[in-house]
């Protein structure tokens, strides 16, 4: 993790998202699919203090140009609205790469990538990485509607198969990714599921994986204040190697967790059997 200034070098619409390209001369080290960046927003006199977290879509380095970092950003609240409305040339303060990336299989096993909306941002480099290791790659992409799908063409190009779902049926199958996932996994005999998207989707994907015996690697999206591991806001209940549940930080121990380790039902609460859980009545 490095803190550096990056210059916005590109900002274009892709469906309902903005594809942002940043350039920095800093050496940011090795970036892997699933790593994220924490970006300060609003400028020096902004009322917004907290960084915003984004999956790193792609990183490349060129002599003379420096390192290029690409993000896919959905303008949701004030901070992302600010970021997506900046012009080329603006400098932003960024910390990257952060978190634990997706774990790659040691063997050539069939993998399925499941993404919801901008959750597809890290999936293209992940697919490339898996293909370069000789893994079969199937893709299931979902969103509420066509304009919220990301990466369809890129993933079509690079994958062995792709199934698209939209809630409104505007593209592909009407429905949710979890509706089509079992069939895709059966067909491809998937051993690992990589997933990135809303919590509900990750939970559903984890259930499907559990039922087939596949390993699920889920990148979660928890509300983060610092992104670097010092504030303890981004926790979720995760079962450790010792079988005990702890509230662990998504920013440093995640954002990628094994699906069978996350207590999905308990997100937003502290399970009574968690280490240090409050006695009835709460802390």
């Amino acid at each position: 993790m490095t803190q550096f200034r990056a210059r916005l070098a590109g900002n274009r619409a892709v469906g309902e998202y903005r594809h942002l390209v940043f350039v920095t001369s800093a050496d940011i080290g090795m970036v892997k699919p699933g790593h994220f960046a924490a970006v300060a927003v609003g400028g020096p006199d902004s009322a917004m203090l907290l960084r915003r977290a984004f999956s790193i879509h792609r990183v490349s380095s060129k002599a003379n140009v420096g390192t290029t970092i690409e993000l896919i950003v959905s303008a949701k609240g004030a901070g992302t609205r600010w970021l997506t409305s900046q012009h080329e040339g603006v400098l932003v303060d960024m910390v990257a790469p952060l978190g634990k990336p997706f774990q790659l299989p040691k063997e050539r096993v069939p993998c399925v990538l499941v993404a919801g909306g901008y959750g597809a941002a890290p999936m293209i480099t992940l697919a490339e990485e898996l293909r370069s290791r000789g893994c079969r790659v199937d893709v299931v992409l979902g969103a509420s509607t066509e304009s919220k799908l990301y990466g369809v063409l890129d993933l079509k190009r690079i994958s062995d198969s792709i199934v698209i779902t939209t809630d409104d049926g505007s593209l592909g199958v009407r429905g949710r990714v979890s509706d089509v996932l079992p069939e895709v996994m059966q067909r491809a005999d998937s051993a690992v599921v990589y997933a990135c998207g809303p919590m509900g989707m990750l939970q559903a994907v984890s259930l499907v994986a559990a039922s087939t015996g596949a390993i699920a690697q889920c990148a979660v999206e928890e509300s983060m204040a610092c992104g670097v591991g010092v504030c303890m806001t981004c926790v979720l209940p995760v079962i450790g190697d010792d079988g005990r549940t702890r509230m662990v930080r998504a920013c440093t121990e995640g954002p990628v967790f094994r699906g069978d380790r996350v207590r999905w039902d308990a997100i937003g609460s502290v399970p009574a059997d968690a280490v240090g859980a409050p006695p009835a009545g709460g802390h």
Partner: protein
Amino acid sequence: MTNIQHVQVDLSTALGKLQLPAPVLTASGCAGYGRELDSYFDITSIGAIVTKSIMMEPRSGRATPRMAETPSGMINSIGLQGSGIESFIEHDLAWLRKRGARTIVSIAGNNVLEFGRLARRLRGVEGVAGLEINISCPNVANRGLVFACNPGSAAEVVAEVRKHAQPGLPLLAKLSPDVTDIVEIAHSVIDAGADGLAMINTLLGMVIDPVTLRPQLGGRTGGLSGPAIRPVAVRAVYQVHAALPQVPILGMGGIRSGRDALEFLAAGASAVSVGTAIFNDPSAPLRIQNELRDELASRGFSRLRDVIGIAHQA
């Protein structure tokens, strides 16, 4: 930072018996146990690391969401998550000691006796430069548990810690601003044996979620921090320094720049802690320390000590 004469500025300071080579510390709960921040700046170059408040037992903290951004601030309801004193000593303090960072251990108890037990457990443990007694965390479910809101119970905790702590170990009592008369609380904890004061902790606040129309945080209320509260913090430091000019104060609340830090020193703080600003900028403590040096130099001060409490001079 224009036209700074590059004079040397002596940044050393002290919180009572605790000598500090540099004036900027981290605020409890905003720097973990120092390790993560060491990737962004050399943590031995600042005054000290103040740890997240440590309790006797492991503690899960509160349900999420635990934070909401607010105008120029945030509210949090972490609920003192941590793995307990044993794990802290074994892993975190050991690392800090090895790393050579000065460490002030923040302690928090569910009751008076627990504070004493924490102090006793840390007796003779190497690498503890002082204790910050967190009597003011507003996240504890029962508001009756906020020791810092009552001069009697605040004093009780401090006396208990004094009784059990390593003799001579510097003790700072951390005050809450959520009181009618902070000077009264300051008097009582000093009388009970604190060597100095850390102030301020967060203000009790709440954010209503615009979608659910219910309190946004898992813990309903939370602690407000960040630049939004700075004027309240500066006022509190000023009032307490006016009443107790001999008592060293570790000032904090919304410090984001060297200029902000200077406000606290002028109001009467001998050193400052940086909290929420770290979330905006993980290298903030050292950056602010450097900015402070430049602010002092540009005003012709060669010693930080000369500016402490200067706002009280006519």
